[in-house]
């Protein structure tokens, strides 16, 4: 809290010194004005809340999809040699490519609607989930599997009642990384190809030198990213409270 207050005071001091022109370096006060302005009256036909909700909707749809696809694919890769052989090369090839590199292609294919953004998030987050899921499945302690077999579990029961729960802590590790990746990928995509959303807002405001709105957008993007991270951590504590006791 002290750090936050100190930062705002320092920010105000630098702005008040007029070292940088006001249009380039807005003061906290004028940023707050911009915040209220976009909140109540909107900017270019959409309010701050609308842009925020558009971004949130995109990221949540894509994120939930990525977790489902990633876990299913990750488990399938550990259970079937064939699936692994087919999927793994793609995964290894896709991993080092920055997701933004796909934007031109996706815009050509799907335009600037919702589809390319959701797809972009999927492409950037599914590998993260898959890799952590396969790690989790493979690190299931062998004695746990043997115990379950000993007590009469068949292959399917071992998968659903032993291996999947054992992999949950690692799946959550992947989910925590993926939520950050998803959010920053989305904002970046909105900067380039969107007509709504927080990324679009700061890009538009920037071209009109509305730096107050730009800073508002940046702060909001940061806060939202932080809140999503907190949300996943809370969920993790509810679902895998044993994680630290393994």
């Amino acid at each position, binding site marked *: 809290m002290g750090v936050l207050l100190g930062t705002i005071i320092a920010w105000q001091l630098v702005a008040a010194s007029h070292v940088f022109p006001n249009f380039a370096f807005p003061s906290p006060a004028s940023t707050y004005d911009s915040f209220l302005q976009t909140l109540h009256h909107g900017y270019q036909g959409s309010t701050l809340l609308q842009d925020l909700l558009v971004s949130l909707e995109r990221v949540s749809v894509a994120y939930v999809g990525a977790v489902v696809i990633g876990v299913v694919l990750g488990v399938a890769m550990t259970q079937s040699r064939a699936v692994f052989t087919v999927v793994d090369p793609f995964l290894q090839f896709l991993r080092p490519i920055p997701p933004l590199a796909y934007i031109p292609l996706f815009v050509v294919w799907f335009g600037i609607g919702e589809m390319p953004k959701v797809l972009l998030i999927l492409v950037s987050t599914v590998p993260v989930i898959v890799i952590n899921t396969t790690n989790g499945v493979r690190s299931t*302690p062998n*004695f*746990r599997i*043997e*115990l*379950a*077999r*000993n*007590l*009469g*579990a*068949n292959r399917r*029961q071992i998968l659903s*009642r*032993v291996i999947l*729960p054992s992999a*949950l802590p690692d799946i959550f590790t992947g989910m925590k990384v993926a939520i950050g990746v998803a959010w920053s990928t989305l904002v970046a995509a909105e900067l380039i190809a969107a007509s709504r959303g927080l990324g679009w807002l700061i890009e538009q405001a920037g071209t009109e030198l509305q730096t107050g709105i730009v800073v508002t957008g940046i702060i909001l993007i940061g806060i939202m990213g932080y809140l999503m991270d907190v949300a996943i951590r809370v969920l993790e504590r509810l679902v*895998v*409270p*044993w994680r630290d*006791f*393994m």
Partner: protein
Amino acid sequence: MLHVDRVFKTFDGDDSRRVTHPVFEGFSLDVADGEFVAVLGPSGCGKTTLLRMIAGFESPDSGRIVFEGVDVVGPASDRVVVFQQPGLFPWLDVRRNVAFGLQLRGRRIDWTPVDEILATVGLAEFARHAPYELSGGMQQRVALARSLVMRPKMLLMDEPFAALDAHLRHAMQVFLRDLWLDVRTTILFITHDVEEAIVLAERVVVLGSNPGRILGELDARDVHPGSVDLLDNADYRRLRHRVVELLGEVP
């Protein structure tokens, strides 16, 4: 009840040794119904391999393992292993851990035997606790309850108390001995601890290594873990002396 009949087993590619290395060359052992047998031996004598073959996790290269008249081909819930680690499922509470095996046959189960067995191991009031909220000894008792609730004909115990401190280990030995007197399940108990083998079992099978073979057998019916001071116990001293003699013969 159990016949291990001229079993041959070699071990290959174990992390340290690259060469194949015979663990058993024609090893035989019989266990009668209701017996409490301890298999005592130094590490590397193959006692864990023996237990894993009886459990059905590994198969002998040749020879037979016959349990209740049927060849062992894989793990089954009539021969349940209790490992050194309790290996409880951390996402299930104590009660559901105990019920794990029963629920494999169908989610809806009669909870009466589960609660009975929890009472037997003295953990009725911990039924709703998470495994990680329990001490090591309590966790091992849950593991035991999880095995016992399956009503196995035989318990295969692989150094189950080795990870516990001396005080707790003694308490668990008393507990297990009383439990056995009560339920009379056949128990094969693997250990490298001479005292543990003598106080727990009726019969102690002393194993030597390279290859694993029986050096001798002891009748330990007269010594119990309850005995106040073992060193004052003439039977215990005699048996202990005999074990040292047997193990001393190892070349």
